[in-house]
């Protein structure tokens, strides 16, 4: 927290984010309170401060005071002062994962995350962004990835995984190509994969190998994450997106494929062009869409009998509710296992795991994060599944913590791991 808070700067940034939609959303709440139960924070801790309408009201009060005629006359709203800024911090960083479930359940149709993002942007401009979240953004800006993995470590990890892939497939020509010029696909990954979950990256590579895809990884611009989506500093978010755009330009690839990551997909597919104020000269797709296509076109074959445990699917908010991708992962799982069963509710109505909105990077709110994750734990328990598939590495981190905290005793996997384990491949014929 800075010694002095630059309120004027905060208001400038807040104002700059407002458009017609925001002005409408901030003028429309009727305090019916029906949004309360749509929020996983409120469901697990039914406290006034967790009601989405209450969080919105804090933002709307400031809007009314500073940007409406009644407010300027001092008749409505509340000024943005230090106390209000702290209330914003607690509400929009500390009690919200920007999942947007409240929006779907709002009587009026208010897009609450938009308002919360405007407030986050103002807080960030005032230097009130949680330090650990900002450190994650800074890592991306300084090192090109959010975990400060060195170029050498990245290249060595991929080299080692390529050896593993060759051993696993029995194909001495199996590749994890690096910086292949003109490849059709540039595949980007979450730094958690090389750092903590290398088998997940190997599973993706195995799928590409089985599909005989023309793909590549990049030595620079390989990190799909963008925590600028969460600190809502558009300039920083744009600079991080630029890493991917530059890698695409450098390698001359056709399609940018985003590995399994909810916020990474939303950042590159939906927000990136807005941050950089221009349409990308290439297509952005999720790896889920690509795998779905491989199965549909028969480029890969899977044997659903390989998976014998009941499987359920978690819908990451940024991929499904905010990303519009709900069906490819279902079609893939329907083909990959005979034991797939939905959570209730699911798709756009699904509950956030609790780790979204940058919550995993904000240590101060860990207790709330774990408590709010109780909704997801309940969904998983009720599904009876023994395997939870989550096409998002941030979600996987949170689900892993929930797994321990709520003693769920489930396996947590990516979609690519499910596909890779079920792949039916012909014996290799190539010579080294």
């Amino acid at each position, binding site marked *: 927290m800075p010694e002095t808070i630059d309120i004027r700067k905060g208001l400038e940034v807040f104002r700059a984010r407002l458009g*017609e939609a925001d*002005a409408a959303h901030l*003028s*429309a709440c009727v305090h019916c309170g029906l*949004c309360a139960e*749509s929020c996983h924070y409120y469901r697990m801790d039914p406290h006034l401060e967790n*009601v989405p309408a209450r969080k919105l009201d804090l933002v709307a009060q400031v809007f009314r005071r500073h940007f409406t005629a009644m407010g300027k006359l001092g008749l409505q709203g509340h000024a943005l002062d230090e106390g209000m800024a702290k209330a914003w911090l607690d509400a929009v960083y500390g009690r919200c994962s920007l999942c947007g479930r409240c929006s779907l359940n709002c009587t009026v149709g208010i897009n609450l995350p938009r308002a919360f993002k405007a407030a986050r942007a103002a807080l960030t401009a005032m230097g009130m962004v949680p330090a650990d979240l900002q450190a994650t953004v800074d890592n991306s800006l300084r090192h090109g990835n959010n975990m400060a993995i060195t170029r050498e470590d990245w290249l060595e990890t991929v080299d080692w995984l390529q050896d593993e892939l060759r051993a696993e497939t029995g194909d001495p020509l199996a590749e994890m190509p690096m910086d292949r010029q003109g490849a059709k696909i540039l595949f980007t990954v979450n730094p958690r994969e090389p750092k903590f979950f290398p088998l997940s990256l190997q599973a993706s590579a195995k799928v590409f190998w089985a599909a005989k895809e023309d793909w590549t990884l990049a030595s620079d611009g390989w990190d799909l994450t963008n925590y600028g989506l969460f600190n809502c500093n558009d300039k920083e978010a744009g600079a991080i997106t630029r890493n991917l755009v530059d890698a695409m330009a450098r390698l001359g690839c056709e399609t940018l494929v985003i590995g399994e990551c909810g916020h990474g997909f939303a950042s590159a597919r939906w927000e990136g062009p807005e941050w950089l104020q221009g349409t990308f000269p290439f297509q952005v797709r999720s790896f889920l869409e690509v795998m779905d296509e491989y199965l549909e076109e028969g480029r890969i074959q899977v044997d659903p009998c390989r998976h014998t445990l009941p499987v359920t699917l978690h819908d990451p908010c940024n991929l499904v509710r*905010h*990303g*519009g991708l709900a069906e490819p992962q279902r079609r893939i799982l329907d083909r990959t296992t005979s034991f797939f069963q939905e959570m209730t509710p699911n798709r756009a109505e699904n509950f956030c795991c609790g780790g979204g909105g940058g919550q995993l990077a904000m240590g101060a709110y860990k207790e709330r994060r774990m408590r709010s994750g109780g909704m997801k734990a309940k969904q998983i328990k009720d599904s009876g599944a023994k395997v939870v598939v989550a096409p998002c590495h941030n979600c996987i981190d949170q689900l892993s913590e929930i797994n321990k905290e709520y003693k769920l005793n489930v396996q947590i996997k990516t979609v690519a791991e499910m596909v890779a384990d079920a792949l039916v491949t012909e014996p290799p014929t190539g010579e080294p």
Partner: protein
Amino acid sequence: MNAVLVAGAWCALLLAAQVLRARAYGRKPLFAPAAGSPAAGARYAFTGAMLPWAKESVRMNPASYAAGIAYHLGIAAAFARVLVPSRLLSALALLGAAAGCALLVKRIAKPHLRGLSNADDFASNLLATAFAATAAVPAAERILPWACAALLVYIPLGKIRHCVFFFLSRYHLGAFFGRRGTFPPAA
């Protein structure tokens, strides 16, 4: 009736000014290629998304939903009743007034709703409920225009402004999710 006309003009003028002010914030050009149709999303936001079974918040609170529908219907009937004497309109207004009372009781009784409420929430409910009640009771015929005028004067000053912002807000939500392919949901 003159009071109603003057109050109506005030209401219309201020609401129009507020909507124009909101629209003046403008729409930023969007560069990411759409995955779906904003228009289809907006259509869904005003139709399928508003059906009682489409929203968990309604499925969990059917009584509140029913009360809300009755309340809005009753207020609309009360406005019509100012112009046209009708037993049906009076009956609907009575239903609306009863629903308004029930929602007020709920607001006071439920801790999270009470905590969320401010003076405007109570003033808006009391004015609208009183107006509906006035339209329902034949003996209150003489004060009906005044109750109507009072409500019209208050509408742009408080949350009842949602009578216009509802449409703008829901349109934008629908267009947002429509563009991203979330609305309408896959069958």
